[in-house]
């Protein structure tokens, strides 16, 4: 009997899972289901170089010729619609049922829309198709309003302003990223917009998009009107787990897993943006949308699925993300909580090159670097030393 593992999700976490299965010696069938028609590609450039037009879609490809040897069975352009743990099947939207001895859930997340309307010129950004559609609109002189100053919103604002677009950012929070970075560092990041000629309205939400077939502007919660030719909703993402409701797999703002990626169902693991996993670093159950998590969590989850010992290097368990905005590289690792003390150990907050270390009870718990990749890398490693031993 041929054993089959079905990987549901054809992006970074899904591909990393498929590769990990082969690397760990699984020689049965591996079926990879991807809702997008395009083979796995890298998403971070979609708001940066790809949106700017300096990187092509082909250059985003994650597959290399070596991956042919993995002997994967692809089901692209097809969404999974049902997981039946009793029958051990994954059902697809074209009716195919894949008998599966093991299942890796890697369905990722989808951009949160602003509202139900879809006028011409209202965009979200998650896929290559989204980025291509948006890129068409970012002509010099166009007026863009970005709703939400999270990383996607901030990067779109940065890229668009470099393209000669007139950009305004609207953010509900009084300081974007305040919870993740703390008020001081978050304020430095927020200032990048203004330093680069982008207007930012904080502490105010968007009441509605004004449209007449096509976008004409937005109305803010305080009744101010902003004229716009293009509106991008950068409101974060929600996990693609609706199809799992009723399957018996435990959902908790994502597919609930332990530190090793195991769900409550035997033979079913979850990884990447769709997984709300126990994190050894914080001691909490958290869903992470970080690239590094999607790339590295699969190695351990696949070990769990195959009943093998997990990899010995848990350094990736220190949450890590980066962003490129206005020519600055921003990197953050660890986990910040209110009350943590911030020490600027290199540069100063008034510049665009500094390193800030967050301490709790004197111990470093997180680090933020702006244009300090070398020093940041050293601190990031030190943070891994805080992890409890895996044994």
């Amino acid at each position, binding site marked *: 009997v041929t054993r089959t593992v079905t990987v549901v999700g054809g992006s970074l976490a899904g591909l990393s899972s498929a590769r990990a299965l082969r690397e760990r010696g699984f020689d049965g069938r591996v079926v990879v289901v991807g809702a997008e028609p395009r083979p796995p590609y890298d998403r971070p450039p979609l708001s940066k170089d790809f949106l700017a037009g300096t990187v092509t879609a082909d250059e985003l490809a994650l597959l290399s010729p070596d991956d042919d040897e993995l002997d994967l069975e692809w089901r692209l352009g097809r969404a999974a619609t049902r997981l039946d743990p009793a029958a051990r099947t994954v059902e697809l939207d074209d009716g195919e049922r894949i008998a599966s001895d093991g299942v890796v859930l890697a369905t990722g997340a989808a951009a949160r829309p602003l509202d139900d309307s879809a006028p011409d010129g209202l965009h979200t950004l998650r896929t290559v198709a989204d980025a291509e559609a948006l890129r068409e609109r970012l002509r010099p002189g166009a007026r863009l309003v970005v709703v939400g100053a999270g990383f996607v919103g901030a990067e779109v604002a940065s890229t668009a302003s470099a393209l000669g677009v007139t950009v305004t950012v609207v953010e509900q929070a009084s300081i974007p990223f305040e919870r993740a970075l703390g008020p001081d560092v978050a304020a430095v990041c927020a200032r990048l917009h203004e330093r680069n000629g982008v207007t930012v309205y904080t502490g105010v939400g968007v009441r509605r998009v004004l449209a007449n077939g096509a976008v004409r502007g937005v109305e803010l919660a305080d009744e101010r009107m902003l004229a716009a030719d293009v509106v991008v909703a950068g409101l974060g993402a929600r996990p693609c787990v609706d199809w799992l409701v009723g399957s018996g797999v435990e959902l908790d703002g994502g597919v609930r897993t332990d530190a090793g990626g195991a769900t409550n169902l035997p033979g079913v693991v979850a990884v990447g943006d769709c997984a709300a996993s126990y994190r050894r670093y914080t001691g909490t159950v958290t869903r992470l949308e970080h*690239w590094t998590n999607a790339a590295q969590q699969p190695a351990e989850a696949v070990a769990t699925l195959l009943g093998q010992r997990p990899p010995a290097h848990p350094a990736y368990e220190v949450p890590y993300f980066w962003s490129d905005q206005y020519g600055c590289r921003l990197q953050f690792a660890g986990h910040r909580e209110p009350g943590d003390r911030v020490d600027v150990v290199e540069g100063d907050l008034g510049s665009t090159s500094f390193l800030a270390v967050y301490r709790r009870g004197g111990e470093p718990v997180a680090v933020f670097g702006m244009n300090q990749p070398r020093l940041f890398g*050293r601190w990031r490693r030190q943070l891994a030393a805080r992890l409890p031993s895996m044994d």
Partner: protein
Amino acid sequence: MISVGALDDIPTDEGVRIQADVPIAVFRVGTGTESEVYAIDDTCTHQRASLADGWVEDCKVECPLHSVCFDLRTGQPDGLLTKKPVRTHQVVVSDGQVYVRLSTEVNQPEEGREVEVA
């Protein structure tokens, strides 16, 4: 050949970046007479990041952005993120001065390419 500078000015287990046609990262591994110097293309083949800023360990450099590790001797990456090697360049140390002879190959990451080991 491109002059990098004095060997003693390259910190152990760290990289320096020099500008040629493309940026080159030069690393010194080990100390004193035991030290070896390696040169590779500075830009990570995965996404834009300078490998000279990376972490050096076991004759490998870890990209500061995504942790892809490249072998300093062969330019080959390990792990699952990229299969594309960086070019390696010949290093000459003479009278305590370090020079790099650039590889003439085009960066074509196909199999069977020859690798110059410094």
